[in-house]
């Protein structure tokens, strides 16, 4: 946190003239409690620590925007290395950087280009880091291309929220693009709808019926899918395709090409093969710029409180002219990550699992029937299927205190619950 500001040697007069216009006086829609002035500037430049997840098409834009807006403590995570095909739009990278870590090269570039900004890179997976790591940031911006990674960071941030500790709530700004389309959204874990709440409105990637691939290919993509989905597992039953291995792509390309010739289909190329196998959607540099800019403006407004921020979903469609729409995506009560009921239970250490289940069934406020219980690491009691019921039945006689540590979590599912109930067990 900032105390008093010693003018940084790199902060020449007028450096932040434009940004300071916003931080020096309140606007008509600014939160009335917000105090403009030096404190606000100091906070942005010395108090805020931002994490950028992804240093690719969106990430490069986000890092550059943040640095030029006056954020000075930026961290970046990316597990990827630079590919030659990135260079058309990932402008922090040069040809000499091909093969190097995106996070490291991006951090170095920003620090060289924008004096006084510290960018701390991590070349690896977001899953390598724990809650203590994510706890250090003011807010997090995602520029990812993976649903799985987004689900992970979203669930992690929702889990981190501790009702006793305001610092534990980390705003998440998520950007995404697909060709001329994109979206930016603000997620306030446990307050607004989360990423998991909107999982079913995701566009599915194009998938072809497996019978078409097997018998009636008409498109070059059908031939490539045939090679990767059917032919590869048949020839190499014990080896998975590595999307990043050029030899694997090469093998698939040759198989696909043969098949295409057999069915008189044109258009199978090496790069199409790579594109289909890796599910690459053509990336448009300017869509990335639009979405990243939206994300960074929201980051600025949330971090400084200087203006009202996005509530909570902005979509951009540039496929037919220019269209955008902003709406409030609502929380789903049955969301497996942020929805569901939670209950603190204090029980005797002598209570058996069967007695705990009876207790749950009797409680009027939760109205549960036939509950199945598990901890994050093991199943305690499952009502079905018969084999699992039998395997977990011996636990019924055991004391809950032997199965669940103090303050341990138990997940309860039942057909009568919208999704699940989480119990936090304490002992008397």
């Amino acid at each position: 946190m900032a105390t008093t500001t010693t003018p940084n040697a790199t902060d020449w007069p007028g450096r932040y003239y434009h940004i300071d216009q916003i931080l020096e006086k309140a606007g008509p829609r600014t939160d009335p409690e917000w105090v403009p002035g030096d404190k606000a500037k100091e906070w942005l430049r010395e108090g805020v620590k931002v994490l950028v997840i992804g240093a690719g098409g969106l990430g490069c834009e986000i890092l550059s925007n943040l640095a030029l807006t006056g954020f000075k403590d930026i961290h970046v995570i990316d597990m990827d290395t630079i590919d030659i095909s990135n260079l058309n739009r990932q402008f922090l990278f040069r040809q000499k950087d091909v093969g190097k870590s995106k996070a490291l090269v991006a951090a170095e570039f920003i620090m060289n280009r924008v004096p006084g900004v510290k960018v701390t890179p991590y070349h690896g997976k977001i899953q390598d880091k724990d809650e203590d790591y994510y706890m250090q940031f003011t807010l997090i911006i995602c520029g990812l291309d993976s649903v799985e990674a987004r689900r992970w960071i979203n669930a992690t941030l929702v889990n981190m929220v501790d009702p006793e500790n305001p610092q534990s709530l980390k705003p998440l700004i998520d950007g995404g693009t697909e060709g001329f389309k994109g979206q930016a959204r603000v997620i306030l874990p446990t307050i607004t709808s989360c990423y998991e709440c909107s999982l079913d409105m995701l566009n599915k990637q194009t998938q072809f019926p497996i019978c078409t691939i097997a018998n009636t290919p008409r498109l070059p993509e059908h031939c490539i899918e045939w090679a990767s989905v059917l032919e590869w597992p048949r020839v190499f039953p014990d080896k998975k395709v590595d999307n990043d291995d050029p030899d694997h792509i090469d093998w698939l390309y040759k198989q696909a090409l043969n098949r295409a010739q057999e069915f008189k289909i044109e258009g199978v190329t090496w790069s199409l093969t790579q594109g289909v196998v890796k599910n690459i959607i053509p990336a448009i540099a300017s869509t990335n710029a639009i979405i990243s800019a939206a994300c960074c403006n929201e980051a600025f407004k949330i971090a400084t409180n200087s203006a009202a921020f996005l509530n909570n979903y902005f979509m951009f469609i540039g496929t037919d002219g220019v269209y955008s729409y902003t709406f409030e995506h609502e929380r789903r009560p049955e969301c497996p990550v942020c929805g569901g009921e939670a209950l603190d239970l204090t029980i005797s250490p002598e209570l058996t699992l069967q007695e705990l289940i009876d207790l749950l069934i009797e409680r009027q406020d939760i109205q549960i029937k036939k509950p199945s219980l598990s901890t994050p690491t093991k199943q305690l009691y499952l009502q079905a299927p018969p084999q699992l019921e039998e395997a977990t039945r011996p636990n019924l006689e055991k004391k809950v205190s032997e199965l669940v540590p103090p303050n341990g979590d138990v997940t309860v599912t039942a057909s009568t619950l919208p999704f699940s109930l989480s119990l936090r067990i304490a002992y008397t």
Partner: protein
Amino acid sequence: MIKIWSMKKNEDAAAKKKPKTSAAQIRVQKDLTELDLPSTMKTHFPDPADLLNFTLTITPDEGMYKGGAFVFSFAINTNYPHDPPKVKCTQTIYHPNVDLEGNVCLNILREDWKPVLNLNSVMVGLQYLFLEPNPDDPLNKDAAVEMTKSRDLFISNVKQTMKGGYLKGTQYDNVLSRS
């Protein structure tokens, strides 16, 4: 940032910390414990502590595959239910919608999968393939052609291959139910 916390206090005072059980894990627990299977379908878990990998045995009680016990492996990844379960037939069987490698042509396993579907829907879909094989969407083209050409011959091929017979150079697995 202060403002955000006050939003939480106002509208969500009762929120509690949630467990670290993954969404996929909870969803699989929910799907499995709420399965509503007929007596013709049974699940088996090689490791009862691992809910993500198991087999389903289908023993059709009518139709041309009656008398067989067909075993499918289910592999669920951590991105479930965004990703569908991976399902394969573990035996070499003669079926228009199942190829000799065990790949299954069922729309909801691929192009028509949606997160609102569940394991029960997949299992019911699989059983349906044995009651009504669909030669219009073939994966085993020979079997499909045979079925359209002569239903009687197809049925006799099914009977022969289910016993572990040989057909056109392929050795099929004996799938006759031992019960």
